[in-house]
């Protein structure tokens, strides 16, 4: 199992960041967003598009040959575009739905439809083959007994820094505080002078940028696929629920635990040749914990409803 520790840390980090973004969006907008995985994939696919060399042919349509920009520039551009995409989703889709008082179930079904639609758009444009960024191959080295490539270490550091920044943003900035206030009660926030629609739009942007960032690092560690977001979505839901829906710290912790356990279970002897089943053990554990603590590890009772 120990040889999976490095991969476990990486997957744990990815699921943790994604869970924070999903749970913040849920908390503020009350939308269970099945299309969150596709925003993750969007970050990865856009980065691939911007950074691959123009001769490479991962794209399905010849007209859209890649741009060959530097990886860092590509990543930043993709994250910004993911934010823009989140804003458009709110302004063109979810705000009108909210103003017309669509029920939660109707909105849920719409996000499922959106997820399927976007996923197949990626399939159309980016082909079904897994693709990798134009980064040089690196060998794994030993870091304190954990096997990682130097780039994996960079990812761990950058990911941790991003997570800390998110925590500081939510705790100490005026906007972060307003997001938490709208999460508690958007009505009370409005009558306290906050424009809830504005905060909801900012949350869409912020959450989508974080999702895009997650997709990029997921693409660095594994590869980029049209359905990569969908494959990881279940783990993200599991992580957010395990930590306690509506708490960012809980989502971070729950996501990390889920990602870690999924990867570590690959190292169990009876899993030999069955690595596809790696989600089973972590999710069984999640169900078990929720049976004992329905509000999640860090959730408060009043929030389950």
């Amino acid at each position, binding site marked *: 199992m120990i040889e999976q520790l490095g991969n476990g840390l990486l997957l744990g980090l990815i699921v943790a960041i994604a869970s924070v973004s999903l749970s913040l969006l849920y908390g503020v907008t009350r939308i269970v967003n099945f299309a969150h995985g596709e925003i993750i994939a969007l970050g990865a696919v856009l980065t691939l598009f911007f950074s691959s060399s123009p001769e490479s042919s991962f794209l399905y349509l010849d007209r859209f040959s890649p741009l060959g920009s530097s990886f860092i520039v590509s990543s930043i551009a993709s994250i910004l575009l993911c934010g823009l995409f989140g804003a458009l989703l709110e302004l063109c889709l979810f705000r009108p739905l909210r103003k017309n008082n669509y029920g939660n179930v109707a909105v849920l079904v719409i996000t499922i439809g959106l997820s399927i639609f976007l996923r197949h758009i990626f399939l159309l444009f980016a082909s079904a083959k897994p693709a990798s960024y134009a980064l040089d191959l690196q060998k794994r080295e030993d870091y304190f007994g954990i096997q990682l490539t130097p780039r994996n270490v960079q990812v761990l550091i950058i990911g941790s820094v991003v997570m800390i920044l998110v925590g500081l943003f939510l705790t100490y900035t005026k906007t972060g505080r307003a997001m938490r*206030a709208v999460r508690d009660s958007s*009505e*009370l926030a409005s*009558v306290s*002078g*906050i*424009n809830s629609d504005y905060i909801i739009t900012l949350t869409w942007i912020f959450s989508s940028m974080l999702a895009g960032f997650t997709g990029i690092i997921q693409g660095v560690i594994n590869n980029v696929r049209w359905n990569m977001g969908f494959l990881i979505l279940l783990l993200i839901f599991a992580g957010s629920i395990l930590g306690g829906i509506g708490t960012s710290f809980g989502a971070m912790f729950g996501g990390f635990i889920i990602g870690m356990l999924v990867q570590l279970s690959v190292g169990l002897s009876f899993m030999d040749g069955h690595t596809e089943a790696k989600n089973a053990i972590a999710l069984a554990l999640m169900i078990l914990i929720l049976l004992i603590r329905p509000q999640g590890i860090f959730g408060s009772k009043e929030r389950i409803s």
Partner: protein
Amino acid sequence: MNKAIIEVNGLAAGYVKGLNILQGIDLVIKENEIISIIGPNGAGKSTLLKAIMGLIPISGGRLYISGNELTNFKSHELIKKGIGYVPQVANVFPSLTIEENLEIGLWTKTKNSKEGKKEIFEMFPILSEKKREKAGNLSGGQRQLLALGRALITKPDVLLLDEPSAGLSPIAIDEVFKSISEINNKGVSILLVEQNAKRALTFCDRGYVLDQGKNSYTGTGRDLLDDPNVIDLYLGKL
């Protein structure tokens, strides 16, 4: 004659289109006044405050604030026009600390935020002691004081209070009423919705009795307390 801060004419509103809970309410709150609204459960008292605050759409009639028509303005815009509101339920942010709850009230103000907090902490020392605690952990009475503080920190001209004494111990109720009267002494008009009709009518300058979404009686607190119809219908059981 004091000038009107809030004036409501023929107001109709409800939660669902075509189904008006309020059917033509008239109401005036003047500078420095304490007004109370009483009426049986389900009369539409909370609904009236929500309609004034822009939380539900106004389908008929008009709302004026300090002489300007602001019918169907958004809640966060009304706050800037000098109204403060404490809802009947869910009136604090439970996962935020006390200090953060007050800071949320300051969202619209960029300057003097330290001053505003200091004043509230002076008025309610208990909040100052617990300022780093989560509002969700406060007792009912302390929550009510925090809700008052959050609404007051924007320095409103008028404060709408929806049953601020509901569910509190007698001591906490006295404290809340004492705070309301201190706030009024500083020049803030008060619109108070109360279950305890007798206490509310004794406390206020003028009162309105609401029944089934309509005004049924209105007058000074004294007149209403002595009105045989009001006694019969709403005070008799007390």
